[in-house]
């Protein structure tokens, strides 16, 4: 089934440690996104990428970095985790043709707990 694969499904991470959340899509979508979901706040955009080789900052980028070496992969890295980064992280992708807006396809999420 075509879609987005996120790994790991869940993780407990010690504060100060680094971690990379993986995201792979097989739909050849140009645009990819990382969101965090927190109770009562909905989803907030961390970083995005319109196409391979380019990235941009979203609403809450501090403490996170991304790379987009190819179309399919969009890893999210926490360089030094803090407890406030405890959240559920969703990767998403969408078609992109010019400035047209499309709906997103989401992965199943990574539940991260920083202790």
């Amino acid at each position, binding site marked *: 089934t075509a879609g987005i694969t996120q790994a790991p499904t869940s993780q407990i991470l010690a504060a100060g440690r680094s971690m990379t959340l993986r995201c792979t899509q097989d739909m050849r979508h140009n645009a990819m996104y990382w969101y965090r979901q927190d109770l009562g706040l*909905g*989803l907030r955009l961390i970083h995005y990428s*319109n196409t391979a080789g380019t990235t941009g900052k*979203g609403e809450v980028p501090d403490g996170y970095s991304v790379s987009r070496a190819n179309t399919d992969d969009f890893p999210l890295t926490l360089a030094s985790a803090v407890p406030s980064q405890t959240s559920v992280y969703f990767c998403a992708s969408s078609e992109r043709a010019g400035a*047209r*807006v499309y709906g997103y396809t*989401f992965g199943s999420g990574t539940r991260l707990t920083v202790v």
Partner: protein
Amino acid sequence: AQSVTQPDIHITVSEGASLELRCNYSYGATPYLFWYVQSPGQGLQLLLKYFSGDTLVQGIKGFEAEFKRSQSSFNLRKPSVHWSDAAEYFCAVAPSYNNNDMRFGAGTRLTVKP
């Protein structure tokens, strides 16, 4: 920047009853509007979207939504709810020119009573 408000945090309806979930947005122009559904432990799935044209849009799973410019609303409706509709529902808005700036509401959790 645009914003989305979902006034109801939690709604409970009986199976077979009708459903309306409210969504209000704040944006200077006509935005692109979306409804997503999230089942427990899953990612979000697109239910329907409004870009332009007919203000009543049909989606998957028997859902529909109506765009009302005068009220800045995009409410989601279903005539008869099924137990499998129990989930979290998110309204989202994006500027018509920027796919990267999609903003989500805080969500409405739907419980379906037998």
